[in-house]
Structure formats: structure tokens, C-alpha cells
């Protein structure tokens, strides 16, 4: 059984016991434990069920590479699935439950799948669920959804907050082990600004567990001294609990900081996403131990040898009383030695190698009385929910059992793989190291920056160095090189520390144990624990032709689980290579993509949630609209009142009332959102002639003109009224959504093509509150405020004037988007509310009412005015809308002119704008299509038009609409069929799009 022992536990604070729960069971651990170490201390060997076969699974590792120990963590608004027990720090009150089992962890119905495993081979989904086709959607997928999946989805809104943080440095060191710390010290001594990120809460990485001495000091004490030195340096920032998640182009790195996961009651954000720009990145990310492939290597109690050592030294946890060690390298001997020294039993070390002479570690193990069995291997691990024993065979054979050891744990080591993920994210290449049987960073092919030079350097174990002395020297040299390329210089007296050397015997690559394992054994030999991929699956994939590593990965799902193949990657590649009789480097690796280890969605979103999910733009009158019951409509990032329903009034009724009131009395609209761009300079007229389809240079100061703007492809992109302020100055109104984009459009042309035009622009949209005063009583209302002559003679239609109204400095435009007598009045934004209030008072006995955007739409539709975004959709040209009158024939050029002459644009069969009137007065459905004769090549009915705007007009008492129709203007009076999505077919007659006051008498009074 696994238990806490009296000695060891260097990371624990044994004076602070904490309680936590697992599957409702109350357990105890210590401050400093991870959830994994605390579970093992409580003999909780079984922690989950596998994804596909629901096999019992236990903790395998002690770090982020852990594939099995995923739990649902927390409750309510702090519930989170798929949390790794090995990277979860224990805190008092932690609640966890295992995943992927039903009805319980101990008894799982789904485990029947393991007896069906012969029927669930690689590619099973693709083979089985393809026929009959409809079954996938209706039968297979729902069943698979139910039985598969890891943790539960959270139900509540996340109760925590998150944030981003932007940081900059010369050298970013990822990894706080000896290599990272030595690299940081070297870079810092040369004068660089350094940040060091360490994913755990502790410095030093594996070194304090693995041991050794540096310049005569035990490595643990060396680490402490180094950290102390670094923390006093002004140019160094040390951060624990921050994982380097991803490396991106231009030295951009994401760091994932877990601020309160270990102390959830602390104030402040839970996670912080560091967005770091570094001059150079040093990846000192260490290495991950590989499992060995033998039958039963997934039974709870089979663990990585170094992790067994971690639990013993760091947490004082014994994984078993009797632990069989199985290895192909010297490092696992350290585990056997540590266990024996702690008073635990190691019945044997099964070493797959046959070596001519003992290495120092072997000799030491033998001195301790441990039985070392060279050339031996695990034939099979026995047990179900925990290990009961190991059957030993010869590595070179086919698995004939020679001896059996009863035991409760197996410590395995198949060698080490450098953590090359961050090196590879931006394209750093790898090279196969035959001696170490591993991929290591190819120093000649680093990820390249904009200057063509590498911007990532690997150091220490991440670069493929495993002896302490080599690690320190490599880290020192790497950082020295990095500093030099950045223009810093290391002082001559700053030299690398030296560690005592301990020679190790070379590793022997072992990808299958025993070498000649039969199918029966291979079917219980797991490569990817989380996705239940076995040696037999990879071999089958190769046999079926999935020989590309990326194909085999997807076919078998090898390495596609939440651990992204940290343990399974190399073993899987080697198995594939073996099946193909190819070299491992010829097979290659799959692509390493960020993040290195899953990061929370909350950290990605940062602060952007709730009120600040997106910016909401508010006009100077926003509060008034809100107080007066506005129904909001989002327009771009703005909120505009859609209508102002009164108590007991439906929104539709409110819109009808607003239309009728504006047509008969007086309406007021907040038009502040419309774009206002000043265009000034000696070439302003010439510039606007190029931007608008019609002539603007001929406009006289004091006058306004409606204009259309097209893209260079001829499509209509914006419209609005242009006012000429003086000889050199124009004010261009744009649509609400167009203010920023049209300003940018102007600047782009000025800065890239027409740099010789003397024109300046300024977007002054937000400087003004602009209020439309509309209706037969508009002039009377403004005259009550007094201060300007607004008579027809003094200010005619399409003119503007500066002046004061009711004491407010303002600019009055006599323009109309409603067909009524209408003024749009701009005042400084800070005066907007006061001016609106003054208008409401003045209009009180004139029947004034505010109106919203829907009323505005109906008013303009009654007049046949087009709306950008309704009548246009990016494929419509002004000619389609019958706006030829606004296209100058005199101008040599304007943006879009040439495009509009292309054959497709000049095609007479382009759909053209018409009015549509239902035969029964009902309202056409928005976006409905008119159907014509016959069918197209896809067997669909031919379309001959579509509705672009449709409303019920209270003024006319019937439905009115506009639409684009094939040969529309030539088909006046014809009735078209518009099938609706409600099953009804609407009939509408083609009419003139101007439904109301065609001669414009009402706006011209």
C-alpha cells in the first residue's frame, strides 16, 4: 500500500495538516502536498478510469506529464474539470472527485469495454460508425457522447476573476531548475534584464531530489544560494507558479500564472496570463521520463521511477512497501537506492541491458543488497485495481516467465526525453540523439526571428544534457551566448560552477518489453494512457497504411489527449518506426503546439467578461435614453434606442406611435453616433471627388450634398451628407458603423496613393451630440429656443448655418432622412444633455416625442431612402439601387468607377431596387426571396429577387418593402411570389420605392 513515512518530505510543512476530500471521502494531507502526493499518502492508488476501456488507472507521474490523475475540482462557481492532481497544490477544504466512471470509481460498468477491446481497435470509430450514414447523428454520436468525455462541464458562471499582464525583458528564462537559475544568473551578471518563470512553487527542479554537489556544496543548498543571489539583483524577476505556456513569433511568450489555485480564499485574480516580449528566450524546461512498454504497465502502482523518488523525497510518501524497479538506464537505480535507504524493499532491479561492467550506481545498489537482474524484463504486471506482482522474463525472449515477484509497486524508466515543446513551438528543429535515444534541440536549426537569427536557446536537460556538471556548464554557456548576441558582456570573473561527475553506463533503447512480446502481451501494453492507445493499435495503424506519423496519430488518437502525448510521444514513434522497419528520425515527430500544458479559458479571456466583455459606446444622451425606457439596439459597438415603449405599450406599438407622431407633430432622434470627419486642405475638394461617386468640389460653402462612397471594387460602402464649411474645409457625415472605417479608408488613400494631395482629416464624431428635430413642428420648436433665423429663406433645404439656439452654440444642418421638415443640430458633446432637455421643454406643447432607430427606418423606407447594410451587403453597386443620379458623369475618375464598368457590374440582368407592396397589406418577411420559373442545376427553384427592407407603415396603413429584383424597374405592377419560412407564400407587387410624398413637398416647407 502507498503511505506516508516518517522521514522525508522536504516540501511539506508537517506542522500544518490540512483536510480535503476525494469522492466524498475526507482525507488528510500536509501543507506543501500536491493532491497526488496526498492521495498516495492515503493509499488512494486508484484515481480514475481510462477514456476508452474504463480501465482502473493510478498516478503515474509527479508533474505536468501525468496522464491519469485528472479530477473534477471544487464546487459551484469554482468547479473545474480535468485538473491534474500532480500539479494541484493541496489546500484546506479542497474537494475533488474522480472522472470518467459510472456508477462509481470502484465499480465501473464501462469497464466491460476492456473485454471488448478486440472489437475496439485503432480507427474503430471510422470503421464502425460510417454505416448506415444517418446512424452517426442519431444513434452513435449520442451514445459515444454519453460514454466518452472526461470531466463534467461546469454549470455555474465562473466565480473568479482573471487578468492579463504585459511584461518586457531582454532574456526570458523558462524553467527554474539548476539550468534555468544558472542561465538567469549568467545573463543577469552580463547586465541583461531577466525574467525567470517556474511552473511549480519551488526552485531547483529535479536537482534536490537527484542529488549531487556543486563546488563542494550539496545541490539543494546551491539552489538556495543561487535563488538568494538572484532575488537581490535589480535586473532579475523571479516568478514561481508561472508556466511558460507558449512561444510565438517575435519573442512573444505566454506565461500562465496560478495566483490563488493553492489558496482560493485569497483576494485578487485567480490566474494571470503574462504576455511577455523577450529579446531572447532560454528554455530550461528539463526532461520527462519515459514509461516502458510492457504488459500491464497501466495498472495502478506502476509509476515512473523518478516520480516514485519524487514522492519519497519531496513528500515523504512511499508508493509501496515492495517496489520492483525496471529500467534501461542508470537513473532508475537512484530510485532503488533511495527506497532502500528509506527502509523500503526493492525485491529486484530488472535491467534490460547487458553490460560488461557495473557503473557506480549499479555498484552502489548492489552494495545495498539489491538484487540486480541484467538482461531481464517485465513479462507482465499482475493485478487489477492495484499491482500485486511482477512476472519476470528475459528481455530478449518472448515473455516466458522465469520468476515472479509479489510487490505493490513498479518503478519504470525507459530513459528521458528533453522537454522540447517550447523550443519547437516556433519551428525549432530536433535532432535524434542515438546515445540517449531521444530527440534533442538541433542547435543549428533554432526558431528564427525577424532578423534571421534564432530567438530561442535550450539549456540543460531541455538541451539533452543530464549530468549535473554538464547541465550547469551548458546553461552558463547558453546564457553567455544569448547575452552576447543581445549586446551584453559577461564579466571575466563570472564563471560556471562545477559539479562532481558521476559516470553512468549508457542507456539501451527498449521500445518493447520483452523484445518479442506476443499479441496477447501487446494488447495490454499501453503507450497513451489517457486515450488508451496500445502497442497493438499503433502496429495495426502501420499495417493499414497509416505510416505518416501525423496520420497514425490521428487514426489511433495517440498523443491527442489533454496530456498531448508527453509520455507516449517517443514510445509511440518508436513503435511505429519498429512496425515499419524504419529509423525513428525517419518517422519524425508530430507538431508541438502551444500551450505546453492546458491553461484556463478564464486566463485567455482575461478581464473581458461581464460588463467589460466588449466596450459599449455610449452617446452623451445614453443615460437619458435609459431613464426613459429605451429598448436598445446594438449598432456597431454603440447602443442606440430602438424605440421608447411606454408603460403597457408593446415595442411595435411604440414604433407605430413614434412614426405617426413624427409625421404629424414633432420627433427627436439622437443622431450623435453618425460619423463626422473633417477634411481640410487645398486639395480637399479634389480628394472628395475621388472618394464620392458624385461631385463634391462644386459644393458651395454653406451647402450640403448627399454622397455615395464605393470601394475600389465598385461596391457601395457608405453614404452620408457632406457639408462644405469653407473653401478648404468639408465635414463628411458617415454611417454609424462607418465612422472609424471611413476615416481609416481616407487616411489609407492619403498616405499610400495620394500622398501628394494636401489634405488633412480628423474624426470628430465624438466631439458632438447631434440631435435630429423632425416633423411639421420642428421649425416652431427651434424658433421657441430662439437665436437663429431658421426660415425657409434664411436656411433652405440642404443648407447649414452656425449660430446659437437657446443660448447653445450650435451648427444647424437642414437635412432630412425622413422626408419631413427636419434639422440636425450639433452641439458640443458636453452640452448634449442640456440641449436635449431644452428641446424637450420647448417641444412640450408641440407634441414632441423621442423616436428610435426603428422609427427612423420606417420613415426613410416610406421615402425610398436606402440604408447601408440593408439595401447593401458588400455586393451591391449604386447602379443597382437606381442611384445613377448621384454618380457624376463629368468626373474622369472616382474610387469604384473603373470597377463599375466591368462586364459583370454593367450586366443589365443585375437585380435592381424596387418597391414592393403586398397584395393584402401584410408585411413581407425580411430577407425573403422571390421565386421564378424553373429550377437551377442543383434542383432548387430559381430566385429572381430578395427583400432588403420591410416594415409595416402606419402612415400608409400597410406593409411596405424594398427589394432587389431581376429587371425590377421594368416590371412595375407585376406580382411576385415570396415563400416565407412560415410555410405561407406572400405576394407582392413591384412598385416605385418612394411610397410617400414623392415630390418632397413636406421636407421643403
Amino acid at each position, binding site marked *: 500500500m502507498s503511505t506516508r513515512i516518517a522521514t522525508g518530505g522536504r516540501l511539506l510543512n508537517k506542522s500544518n495538516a490540512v483536510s480535503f476530500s476525494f469522492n466524498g471521502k475526507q482525507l488528510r494531507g500536509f501543507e506543501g502536498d500536491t493532491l497526488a502526493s496526498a492521495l498516495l499518502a492515503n493509499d488512494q492508488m486508484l484515481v480514475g478510469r481510462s477514456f476508452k476501456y474504463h480501465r482502473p488507472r493510478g498516478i503515474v507521474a509527479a508533474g505536468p506529464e501525468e496522464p491519469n490523475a485528472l479530477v473534477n475540482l471544487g464546487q459551484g462557481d469554482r468547479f473545474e474539470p480535468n485538473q491534474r492532481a500532480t500539479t494541484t497544490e493541496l489546500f484546506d477544504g479542497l474537494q475533488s472527485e474522480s472522472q470518467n466512471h459510472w456508477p462509481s470509481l470502484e465499480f465501473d460498468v464501462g469497464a466491460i469495454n476492456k473485454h471488448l477491446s478486440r472489437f475496439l481497435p485503432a480507427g474503430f470509430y471510422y470503421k464502425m460508425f460510417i454505416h448506415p450514414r444517418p446512424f452517426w447523428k442519431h444513434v452513435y454520436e449520442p451514445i459515444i457522447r454519453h460514454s466518452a468525455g472526461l470531466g463534467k462541464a461546469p454549470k455555474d458562471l465562473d466565480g473568479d476573476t482573471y487578468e492579463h*499582464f*504585459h511584461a518586457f525583458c531582454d532574456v526570458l528564462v523558462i524553467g527554474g531548475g539548476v539550468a534555468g537559475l544558472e542561465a538567469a544568473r549568467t545573463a543577469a551578471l552580463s547586465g541583461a534584464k531577466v525574467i525567470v518563470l517556474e511552473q511549480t512553487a519551488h526552485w531547483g527542479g529535479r536537482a534536490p531530489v537527484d542529488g549531487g554537489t556543486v563546488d563542494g556544496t550539496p545541490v539543494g543548498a546551491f539552489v538556495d544560494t543561487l535563488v538568494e543571489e538572484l532575488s537581490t539583483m535589480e535586473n532579475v524577476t523571479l516568478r514561481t507558479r508561472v508556466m511558460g505556456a507558449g512561444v510565438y513569433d517575435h519573442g512573444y511568450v505566454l506565461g500562465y500564472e496560478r495566483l490563488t489555485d493553492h489558496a482560493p480564499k485569497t483576494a485578487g485574480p485567480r490566474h494571470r496570463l503574462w504576455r511577455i516580449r523577450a529579446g531572447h528566450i532560454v528554455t530550461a524546461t528539463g526532461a520527462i521520463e519515459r514509461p516502458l512498454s510492457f504488459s500491464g504497465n497501466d495498472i495502478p502502482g506502476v509509476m515512473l521511477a523518478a516520480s516514485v523518488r519524487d514522492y519519497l523525497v519531496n513528500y515523504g510518501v512511499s508508493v509501496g512497501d515492495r517496489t520492483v524497479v525496471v529500467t534501461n538506464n542508470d537513473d532508475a537505480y537512484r530510485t532503488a537506492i533511495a527506497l532502500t535507504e528509506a527502509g523500503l524493499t526493492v525485491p529486484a532491479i530488472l535491467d534490460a541491458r547487458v553490460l560488461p561492467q557495473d557503473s557506480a550506481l549499479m555498484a552502489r545498489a548492489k552494495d545495498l543488497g539489491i538484487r540486480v537482474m541484467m538482461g531481464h524484463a517485465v513479462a507482465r504486471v499482475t493485478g487489477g485495481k492495484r499491482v500485486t506482482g511482477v512476472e519476470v522474463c528475459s528481455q530478449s525472449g518472448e515473455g516466458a516467465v522465469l520468476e515472479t515477484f509479489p510487490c505493490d509497486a513498479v518503478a519504470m524508466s525507459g530513459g528521458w526525453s528533453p522537454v522540447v515543446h517550447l523550443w519547437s513551438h516556433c519551428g525549432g528543429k530536433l535532432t535524434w540523439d542515438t546515445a540517449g535515444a531521444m530527440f534533442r534541440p538541433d542547435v543549428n536549426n533554432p526558431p528564427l526571428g525577424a532578423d534571421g537569427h534564432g530567438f530561442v536557446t535550450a539549456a540543460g536537460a531541455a538541451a539533452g544534457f543530464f549530468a549535473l556538471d554538464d547541465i550547469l556548464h551548458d546553461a552558463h554557456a547558453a546564457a553567455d551566448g544569448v547575452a552576447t548576441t543581445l549586446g551584453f558582456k559577461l564579466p571575466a570573473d563570472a564563471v560556471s560552477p562545477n559539479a562532481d561527475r558521476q559516470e553512468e553506463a549508457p542507456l539501451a533503447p527498449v521500445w518493447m518489453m520483452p523484445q518479442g512480446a506476443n499479441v496477447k502481451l501487446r494488447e495490454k501494453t499501453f503507450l497513451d494512457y489517457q486515450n488508451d492507445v496500445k502497442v497493438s493499435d499503433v502496429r495495426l495503424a502501420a499495417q493499414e497504411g497509416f505510416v505518416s506519423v501525423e496520420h497514425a496519430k490521428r487514426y489511433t488518437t495517440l498523443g491527442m489527449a489533454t496530456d498531448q502525448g508527453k509520455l507516449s510521444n517517443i514510445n509511440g514513434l518508436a513503435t511505429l518506426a519498429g512496425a515499419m522497419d524504419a529509423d525513428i528520425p525517419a518517422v519524425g515527430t508530430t507538431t508541438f503546439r502551444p500551450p505546453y500544458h492546458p491553461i484556463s479559458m478564464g486566463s485567455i479571456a*482575461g*478581464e473581458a467578461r461581464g460588463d467589460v466583455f466588449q*466596450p459599449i459606446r455610449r452617446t452623451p444622451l445614453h443615460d437619458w435614453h435609459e431613464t426613459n425606457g429605451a429598448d436598445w439596439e446594438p449598432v456597431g459597438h454603440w447602443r442606440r434606442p430602438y424605440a421608447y415603449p411606454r408603460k403597457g405599450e408593446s415595442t411595435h406599438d411604440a414604433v407605430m406611435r413614434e412614426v405617426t407622431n413624427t409625421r404629424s407633430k414633432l420627433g427627436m432622434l439622437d443622431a450623435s453616433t453618425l460619423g463626422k470627419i473633417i477634411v481640410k486642405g487645398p486639395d480637399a475638394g479634389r480628394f472628395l471627388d475621388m472618394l464620392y461617386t458624385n461631385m463634391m468640389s462644386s459644393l458651395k460653402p454653406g451647402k450640403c450634398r448627399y454622397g455615395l462612397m464605393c470601394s475600389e471594387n465598385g461596391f457601395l460602402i457608405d453614404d452620408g451628407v457632406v457639408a462644405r464649411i469653407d473653401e478648404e474645409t468639408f465635414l463628411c457625415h458617415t454611417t454609424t458603423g462607418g465612422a472609424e472605417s471611413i476615416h481609416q479608408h481616407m487616411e489609407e488613400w492619403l498616405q499610400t496613393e495620394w500622398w501628394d494631395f494636401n489634405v*488633412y482629416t480628423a474624426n470628430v464624431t465624438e466631439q458632438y451630440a447631434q440631435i435630429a428635430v423632425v416633423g411639421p413642428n420642428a421649425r416652431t420648436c427651434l424658433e421657441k429656443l430662439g437665436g437663429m433665423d431658421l426660415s425657409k429663406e434664411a436656411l433652405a433645404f440642404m443648407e447649414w448655418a452656425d449660430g446659437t439656439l437657446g443660448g447653445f452654440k450650435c451648427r444647424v444642418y437642414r437635412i432630412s432622412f425622413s422626408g419631413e421638415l427636419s434639422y440636425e443640430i450639433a452641439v*458640443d458633446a458636453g452640452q448634449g444633455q442640456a440641449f436635449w432637455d431644452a428641446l424637450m421643454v420647448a417641444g412640450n406643447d408641440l407634441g414632441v416625442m423621442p423616436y428610435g432607430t426603428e422609427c427612423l427606418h420606417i420613415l426613410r423606407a416610406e421615402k425610398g431612402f436606402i440604408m447601408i447594410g440593408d439595401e447593401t451587403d458588400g455586393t451591391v453597386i449604386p447602379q443597382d439601387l437606381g442611384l445613377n443620379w448621384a454618380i457624376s458623369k463629368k468626373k474622369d475618375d472616382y474610387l469604384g468607377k473603373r470597377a463599375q464598368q466591368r462586364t459583370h457590374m454593367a450586366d443589365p440582368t443585375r437585380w435592381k431596387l424596387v418597391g414592393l407592396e403586398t397584395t393584402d397589406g401584410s408585411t413581407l418577411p425580411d430577407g425573403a426571396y422571390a421565386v421564378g420559373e424553373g429550377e437551377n442545376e442543383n434542383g432548387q427553384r430559381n430566385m429572381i429577387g430578395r427583400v432588403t427592407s420591410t416594415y409595416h407603415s402606419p402612415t400608409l396603413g400597410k406593409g411596405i418593402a424594398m427589394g432587389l429584383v431581376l429587371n425590377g424597374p421594368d416590371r412595375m405592377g407585376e406580382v411576385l411570389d415570396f415563400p416565407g419560412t412560415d410555410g405561407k407564400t406572400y405576394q407582392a407587387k413591384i412598385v416605385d420605392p418612394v411610397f410617400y410624398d414623392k415630390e418632397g413637398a413636406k421636407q421643403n416647407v
Partner: protein
Amino acid sequence: MSEAVSALKAAEFTGGIAEVTLMDPIGMISVRGDLTAAYMKKALKKAVGLGLPDTRSVQINGDRGVAWMSPDELLLLCPYDQVSDTIDMLTKCFGSNHTLAVNVSDARAVFRISGAHSRDVLAKLAPVDLSPATFTPGMIRRTRLAQVPAAFWIEEGDSFRLVCFRSVALYVYDLLKIAAQPGSAPVFYSAKP
């Protein structure tokens, strides 16, 4: 005319790792022209009593100032009620030269962010190197604050002046409050404890 109203009613946040305060409106004039020309130097001298700021710099002289915005754009600061006089003065100095000077005072909202962690608070929202050695008094950054444009400079000590568009004043205020929430100091740009 009535009293000019700022984008938000009084807004002040305390109790976090920095204080956030909405400021009264100040006069702001967007100026475009040839920044190196003699007429520009003369106009700046007359209008705000200052010279041409360097790239990404701001000069402050009491309640007046001038900030570099782009190679052909400046932002002039003055008391809110002196904007028209200042524009008149500029226009006179510019003469017939091709220039632009427009009042943008009401298009903006102004905040002060102060306290020992003001640099850290801003760095949560803006992709700017705010280390005291890099971002020094006299500098201005036209940048973004989360999802909207903003500009800021150091008022004095650890107090920053931040300008954003008027329509997003509430969004910016809410952002700053979240970034300044208690217990959230990264302690990266602020001095080590």
C-alpha cells in the same frame, strides 16, 4: 450654454492597488501640419508656450501642454474654456500654410491613475513596457487599453493621466477598477517590496 458635462458623473475608485479618478474636462486641440516648419514652432510657442515635443513625448507647462501624436499630428492641451481662443491663435500663426486645428475636448474623457502600483495596473491593459527605466516622465503612449484606444503619460511621480474616447469612458473606468482590484498587484513595474 450650460456647464460642460463630462462623460461620466463623478467617478472615483479607491481601496484597490491604485486609485482611479475621472477628471474634469480639459481643452484638447488636434493639430495637423508640418511639425518641423517654423510656423509650427511659432504657433506652439504662442498657443501653449512650449516647443515641439520629440517623438512619443509630451511637454507640460502648467495647464497647457503639447503631445506628439504622429509624424504630422500633435495634441494641444489647454484650459477647457480657452479652446476657441487657442485655436484662433493657432490659426493666425499658421497663416495660409496647410494645417488643421480642431477642438476635440468633448470627444474625450480623462482619468488619473495613481498610487504605488499605477504602472502595474496600466500594464494589465496596455501592451506597453512601463518599467520606470523605460517609460519616463515626459513620454506619452498612444496605445490601447484592452479593446479601445487610449493615450497616457506621467503626471508626476506614480500618477498617470489617461485620455480615452468619451463614448467608452464607462468601459475604461470599469476596466481600470478591475485592473486595480485589491490583491491583484503583479509587483513587476512597481518597486520590489
